[in-house]
């Protein structure tokens, strides 16, 4: 049995999803030969630290009842730097202005000899090359499958399963909120404002939907794809972005009559990064509905490979995180 000590930095929906998955997968992980022990959990109010392993049920209950997991005042950086462990799971919320607190957390982890698994898009969209080089220089892994496409394993697919292929281009729908809004508008001939309200009531769209509907979230994900898959040194400013707020039900109807659907498509091709509403033929593999995410990868040897799945949700995102933790556990 190999013991892997991890910390969870950020205990919102994703962090709690990781904890729940570790509980439900305990037997599975033992069979695989791993004892994954959480030695520290941090949220914005403080931390719980236990080098023998935290009782995750307790931690989840305390979070639910008290609103925080903290049993002490140590902050995330104390936990990352001072407690001995192998992997930092950085799942604080994305901040696209300066990447914090995620950026500082990831830097601290890599500088103190810990591998990093993250779902946090900000640091990777802003400082991809720096973080990747820091990880490599220190002989550490930096894994980020959960940053793009939620449960959909885009990076694993390209870097592992499609190794040997040159990637010609990638097109994808990487924002479930926009996909939901466009799907509903087309199905019900409802105007944008009404569907947005519905999505907000269902918890699919945020109270301030700007980040999703203006294409910002999609653009950030596209930047991570460009950097990870095409080795670009791109940042958010390199993406040509058009959102979905101007789309009318009449436009969707006209598209429908001519066998198209309209989707907010991210495109990386020939060094150019674009997020814009696009006409997608109805029978094309990219034409997925609801909140689904999809990525279509055009390669030289394998041709076109398309994968789709759930792009959000705490357990779905935890699936990608767990897969990254196991990758490190097996290879370190």
């Amino acid at each position: 049995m190999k013991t892997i000590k991890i910390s969870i930095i950020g205990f919102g929906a994703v962090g709690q999803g990781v904890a729940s998955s570790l509980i439900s997968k305990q037997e599975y992980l033992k069979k695989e030969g791993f004892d994954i022990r959480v030695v520290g959990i941090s949220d914005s109010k403080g931390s719980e630290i236990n080098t023998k392993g935290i009782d995750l049920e307790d931690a989840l209950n305390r979070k639910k009842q008290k609103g925080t997991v903290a049993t002490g005042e140590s902050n995330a950086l104390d936990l990352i730097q001072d407690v001995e462990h192998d992997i930092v799971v950085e799942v604080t919320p994305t901040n696209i202005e300066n990447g914090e607190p995620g950026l500082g957390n990831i830097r601290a982890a890599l500088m103190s000899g810990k591998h990093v698994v993250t779902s946090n898009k900000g640091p990777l969209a802003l400082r991809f090359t720096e973080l990747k080089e820091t990880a490599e220089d220190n002989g550490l892994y930096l894994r980020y499958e959960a940053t793009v496409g939620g449960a959909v394993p885009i990076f694993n697919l390209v870097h592992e399963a499609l190794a040997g292929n040159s990637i010609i281009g990638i097109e994808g729908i990487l924002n479930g909120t926009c996909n939901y809004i466009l799907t509903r508008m087309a199905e019900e001939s409802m105007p944008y404002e009404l569907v947005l309200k519905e999505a907000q009531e269902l918890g699919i769209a945020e109270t301030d939907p700007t980040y999703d509907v203006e294409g910002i979230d999609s653009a950030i994900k596209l930047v991570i794809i460009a950097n990870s898959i095409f080795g670009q040194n791109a940042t958010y400013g390199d993406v040509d972005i058009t959102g979905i707020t101007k789309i009318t039900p009449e436009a969707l109807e006209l598209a429908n009559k001519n066998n198209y659907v309209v989707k907010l498509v991210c495109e990386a091709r020939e060094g150019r990064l674009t997020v814009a509403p696009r006409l997608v033929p109805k029978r094309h593999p990219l034409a997925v509905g609801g909140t689904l995410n999809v990525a279509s990868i055009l390669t030289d040897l394998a041709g076109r490979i398309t994968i789709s799945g759930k792009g959000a949700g705490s357990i779905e995102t935890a699936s990608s995180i767990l897969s990254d933790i196991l990758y490190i556990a097996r290879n370190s």
Partner: protein
Amino acid sequence: MIISMTLELKDIPGQLVLALAPISELHGNIMSVVHQHYEKTPRGTIPVQVTFEIEHRVLNKLIQRLEKSGVRVARVGEERLRSTVSVILIGHIVHSDMGDTIDRIDSTGFAEVVDMSLSMPAIEKTSSAYLVINAVGEKELGMALDILRDVADKKDLLMIEPIRLNSVEA
């Protein structure tokens, strides 16, 4: 531009090469050759249909070279509007003088707006239009789209184009 030609060859060996060589020499890209050896013309020559892409300015030179080498050029035609694209425009399309935009594309000579449907929910509300543009080739289609992008940009219209990665696929 894409040209389709009917050539007439003498019924002796080596004539097909004689007919095709000048096209390559002038950097033409041959797309198809239909050669029916047993269908002779009343003149006893063998007709060949060749389709190729070539720069417009060397077309006359090509015809001269062919005639000089004894190949009869029976017919020259331009293969028009082989490429097509659909786009959607959203905004105050009626106020933006769509007719002028269509004229701009049609007057290029290499592209035409062949279909357009307009949907206007109410006065002062944004309307939506679906357009189909045909052009003589992919390059020309791209140029027609550039015109439309320019108009959309100036008149604050949202232009929705098709996904593109498909076209890269062989």
